């Protein structure tokens, strides 16, 4: 199964009903699948930090959510993570990596090379999927981590899973 389909199945299995996202080439097929799923509400954000607040509001209202984003957006979230950390709102992040593997754009390096460090310092547990076969089990584990105890958990999707972007 395509790696993105494994995330989609894990989201459904975990009864995730709100999927907040910032448009991203790596997540494009998954985002389209979530938009097309009548059981899910797909929420297009203007910045990733909005997603932390949206999902916290969703949990207040009894609904599970997840956030799809790119590694460059992690920096935008740092202060807003304090909302989830202080109130122990569950947070499940699915992050496509940039600046890691045959990256065409050097401006992606600073965030891409420190994504897991930033997340860990902010209190977000991270797993990294390097191969398509890792994605499904790790997606399920990430969602379990978030929803079983109000934790903040992120699955980093290695750039080698993505098509190489060349601007050619």
């Amino acid at each position, binding site marked *: 199964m395509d790696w993105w389909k494994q995330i989609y199945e894990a989201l459904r299995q975990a009864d995730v*009903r709100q999927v907040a996202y910032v448009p991203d080439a790596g997540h494009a097929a998954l985002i389209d699948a979530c938009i097309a799923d009548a059981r899910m509400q797909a*929420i297009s*954000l*203007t910045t990733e930090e*909005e997603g932390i607040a949206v999902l916290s509001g*969703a949990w207040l209202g*009894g609904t599970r959510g997840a956030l799809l984003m790119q590694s460059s957006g992690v920096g935008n979230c740092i202060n807003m993570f*304090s*909302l989830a950390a202080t109130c122990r709102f569950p947070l499940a992040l699915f992050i496509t990596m940039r600046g890691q593997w045959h990256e065409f754009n050097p401006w992606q390096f600073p965030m891409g090379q420190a994504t897991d460090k930033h997340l860990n310092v902010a209190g977000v547990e991270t797993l990294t999927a390097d191969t398509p076969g890792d994605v499904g089990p790790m997606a399920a584990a990430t969602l379990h981590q978030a929803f079983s105890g109000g934790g903040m958990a992120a699955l980093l999707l290695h750039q080698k899973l993505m098509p190489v972007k060349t601007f050619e």
Partner: protein
Amino acid sequence: MTNQKRSEAYPLRRRQVVEQIVHGKENLLVIAGLGSTAWDITSAGDRDLNFPLWGAMGGAIAMGLGLALAQPDRRVLVVTGDGETLMGLGSFATVALRAPVNLSICTFDNEHYGETGMQSTHTSGETDLAGVATACGISVVGLVRNQAELDAALPDILETPGPVFHAIKVRAENLDFVLPPKDGVHLKNRFRRALLGDEVI
């Protein structure tokens, strides 16, 4: 240019405004932005279905969006300040795209950052939050500057299908703190228990 003194003469007083909006509305789900609006909403009576923020600046409107989408049959009210609103202006566009009819947002705009020493915000200059909301596509938008306009806006704030936004110009004034509980887990759990029942805790 900022107009530092202008809002000191505005007739509406924030504590009376919040009291008029929420009085008797026991089913209303309320998110309050950090600082003055969290104290305001508490001054009208601390209640389980209030979620006063003590941080997360710029997130109140987005949090209201997530709650409104999760609870489509309940009216959700976000009460926040002009500084907090300015930090998350993109949220107006995000709200407009999903357009939950049950979400109503009130920004108490005193044109100052109240918690940090009453420095001027951008709304003391040329920035018009109602204009921003309109341009972002919020369905129902109002500017409230006096008691007559507040009286007229109340049905929109509380009942009209939205999303709804009101910029409510309130007097710049230093008021006593009326602090809600500070523990975030407690605030979350009491809200969820009141809304969803004991079994969710």
